[in-house]
């Protein structure tokens, strides 16, 4: 049981305003860092992988930008891509609308996750109850 918990713990991957992008790394390096550090993936290969994922969102143009130069939506996508770099990731998205401050479309989150749904195992979203409407749900707990 403890082993399973530890294994699950290793796969927990956070997307949260409290887990920001590293400001002295380019977008691709922020995403690639996880595989480079944990799997010793070569920098060139990790960059290729990161850019491949960015292409899914049509964001290949921001690859060499840094965190502060991104829009909220771009930052959210980059955080999401960084999170799915964890093998068999269990995504924990904590208050996404703290990052997507001005996002109005209630399908944005679903649409964004759908693009990379082959890259994570499970996904849990935590938010405050007053944001319930944005999830089109009535039974949020």
């Amino acid at each position, binding site marked *: 049981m403890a082993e399973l918990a530890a294994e699950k713990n290793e796969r927990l991957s956070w997307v949260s305003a409290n887990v*920001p992008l590293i400001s002295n790394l380019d977008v691709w390096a922020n995403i690639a860092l996880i595989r480079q*550090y944990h799997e010793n993936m070569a920098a060139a290969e990790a960059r290729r992988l990161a850019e491949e994922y960015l292409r899914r969102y049509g964001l290949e143009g921001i690859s060499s930008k840094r965190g502060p130069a991104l829009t909220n939506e771009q930052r959210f996508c980059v955080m999401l891509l960084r999170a799915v770099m964890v093998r068999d990731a269990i995504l924990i998205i904590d208050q996404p609308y703290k990052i997507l401050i001005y996002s109005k479309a209630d399908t944005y989150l679903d649409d964004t996750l759908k693009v990379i749904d082959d890259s994570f195992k499970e996904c849990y979203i935590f938010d405050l109850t007053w944001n319930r409407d944005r999830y089109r749900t009535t039974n949020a707990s």
Partner: protein
Amino acid sequence: MTAVLEHIGRRTLNISSTLRDTLSSAFRILLRMFDPRVYTSAVRSVLINQIYFTSVQILPLFLGASIIVGSLLIGIVFQTIKDLGLAEYTGRILMGFVVTELSPLITVQLITLRSSSAMNTEVAVMKVNNEINTLRVFDIDLVNYLFLPRIINGIISVVLLSSLFSIVVITSGILFSKLIFGMSLDAYTILILNSATFADAVILFLKCSAFGFFITLIPIQCGLNATNELTSIPIAVLHGMVKVFIAIIIIEVLSLILRFI
């Protein structure tokens, strides 16, 4: 009177606990340095970037400063030697004083001013921005990712740049030995070779390594001491830089004691 004693006691305890913390982390990092598993692709990337920022980007400024300061220094030293009638000690003074004492000291001051302050600020900003939390959340070891590549870069940079400074000084010596003593190139070369000892080289290497180690370790540690407030950044940098200068003085004094034992 009691208040004064309390103040002295408190200061002493603070200093000794800072010293103990610094030395114990230095020891832990030193052990980690010899573990090949920590050198992952991410750590190597940081190391390469750090070497570029510290040793390569600084080269034009450093070479310029070395030529100006080194030439002036060697000119003054040779003129003083001539005025005092100590010409037979020229080689020993050049190697024992200028190369092994002044070169590392000037080099370490330059690197501290440029790179240590930058590292201190960088880490403090990371702390304030919660980026240190990001590393922890993604299970990235702070010692492996933040400390090790920067410290190894510090050691490599101080050793190499100090050697470069020494080469510039010795090369300037060719001109000044000709102008002041009328010495030929052959005679100057023999003088330098006869004055160089293996012990000096070892002490020089150890001293440069120690400088490189502590002028990077201390700023990173102080950067991590920043709180979550922006105003803590200048305080962290100020504390870090003061501690770095104290460390430089301690290492210099210890190396002098070691040389004259």
